[in-house]
């Protein structure tokens, strides 16, 4: 794996931050309650490492919204919460409290999470593809529930795949909910991303 130099990592973090900021704008324009998204911490990890991180936090109960992309690069992008956090986020947004918050989402609530995930993913991927001049098309968002291995399988992750992991806090009123955006890259897509970010940051090859 070709490493991202610190300057390039800064550029990548800035781009994801821009995307997250845009996501917050869109969310606030459609929601009645104010929602904040913190500046993300961004890092690149191996697929297996992501599974470890997610297993540690969420155990068997994770809720995610996933979209696949293809075109200049191919892969998928997930917005991931622990099942309990996903339930709390939906509760905060719609201003309801349900007794089942810890046990996954029903069809209506998963639909709400899908819309939120769709906005966040579109904003981040839109920013990345616009700035890095990538042409991407996307599948419709789908909702996934399960453990970290299942999520990685659904994302089509394989040996040598790299994940851009951005962690952010969703704040609604006084509540804070931890979310993760994981963009999965095949080795070839990762090289393309590397080249595009290097070009954007003005660093010679």
């Amino acid at each position, binding site marked *: 794996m070709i490493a991202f130099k610190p300057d390039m990592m800064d550029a990548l973090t800035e781009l994801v931050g821009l995307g997250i900021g845009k996501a917050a704008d*869109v969310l606030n*324009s*459609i*929601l009645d309650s104010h929602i904040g998204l913190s500046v993300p911490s961004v890092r690149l990890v191996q697929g297996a490492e992501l599974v470890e991180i997610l297993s540690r936090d969420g155990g068997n109960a994770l809720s995610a919204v996933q*979209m696949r992309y293809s075109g200049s690069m191919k892969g998928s992008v997930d917005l991931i919460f622990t099942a309990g956090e996903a339930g709390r986020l*939906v509760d905060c*947004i*719609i201003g309801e409290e*349900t*007794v*089942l918050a810890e046990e996954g989402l*029903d*069809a*209506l*609530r998963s*639909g*709400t999470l*899908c*819309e939120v995930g*769709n906005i966040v*993913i*579109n904003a981040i*991927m*839109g920013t990345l593809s616009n700035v890095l001049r990538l042409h*991407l*098309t*996307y*599948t*419709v*968002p789908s909702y996934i529930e399960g453990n970290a291995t299942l999520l990685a399988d659904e994302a089509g992750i394989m040996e040598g795949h790299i994940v851009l992991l951005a962690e952010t806090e969703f704040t609604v009123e006084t509540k804070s909910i931890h979310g993760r955006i994981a963009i999965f890259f095949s080795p070839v897509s990762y090289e393309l991303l590397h080249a595009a970010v290097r070009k954007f940051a003005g660093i010679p090859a």
Partner: protein
Amino acid sequence: MNEEFALFDHVPLGIIVCSGEQLVRFWNSCIEDWTGISRQEIYGKPLPSFFPRLNEARYRKRLDLLLEGGPPIIFSYQLNGCLLPHRNPLRMERIQHITATSLLGKNQEHLALLAVEDRSEVSARIRSARLELTKRIETEESLRKAIAEKEFLMRELNHRVKNNLSMILSMISLQQETIESESFRSTLEDLDGRIRSFSLLHEMLYKSPDTTNIRLDIYIGNIVREMFESLRNPASGAVLDTEIEPLELPFQSALYLGLIASEALTNAMKYALNHRNGGFIAISVKALSPTSIELRVRDDGPGFRSGFDPMSGESLGLKLIQLLTTELKGELSFNTGENSGLALIVRFSTGI
């Protein structure tokens, strides 16, 4: 009829295709039913002219992006309500979940494809399941409260009964001091022992978290040890050996078994250990099977005197033991050793 999208008339989803300015290019039969708007009416007209909410910036902006080839968009019911309602406001509001994607038309122009899912049935099922769950949680909560209250009252009742029995025991004890007749004093002593069995049982019940079942090793163990200590002559060197398994019985059965054990012990102390040094009494309670229990009270005394019939009803203690065994639907038997000793055996089923 727009032949290009005719296939969409056969899917169980509402399908709408719009071109720039949200002009409707296709309107399938399913969405005709759900909105009451025919395709003839809507073709070539902007979608927001029929559904004004779509004119709001938050929808227009996102749909415009789609018409430039942008990524898919979701409009969920909880965040947006029913965006495409039936024109007759009296008709049922459908729970709509809309997925909008970009599509390339024949002339390579970007189109927006809106797929409308009706989640009304799913949502109704979720609502009724949730309602049912809430009711169950409330019922369980009130049952838990009722049980806790009942247990509190039972403990309180047992405490009071135990206190009243202690008062009776004190009165008997005071009375005993004033009585000179040996036989009357002995009668009062027997009575004292019986009341003590009741008192101990109620004491256990108000101290235990379980107000319905009694642990035999604790209850019967305590009764017989307490009685043995109060009735024995310390100088005689008599020994009591107990071997009681930690079995549980409901309140009433435990009370009967406790009374039988204390009567048998009183008899053994009166007739087997009396007027001699040494001697022993062994009391055991064990499960013969998962549903049957045996109580055995054995001594090394002289056994029944010649010609004595234990079932004749001559002795009040033995008569009580017979009655209590009948209450337990059990069997009473006696075993006399070859040289000396007597064993009283009660076997009963816990399954009845």
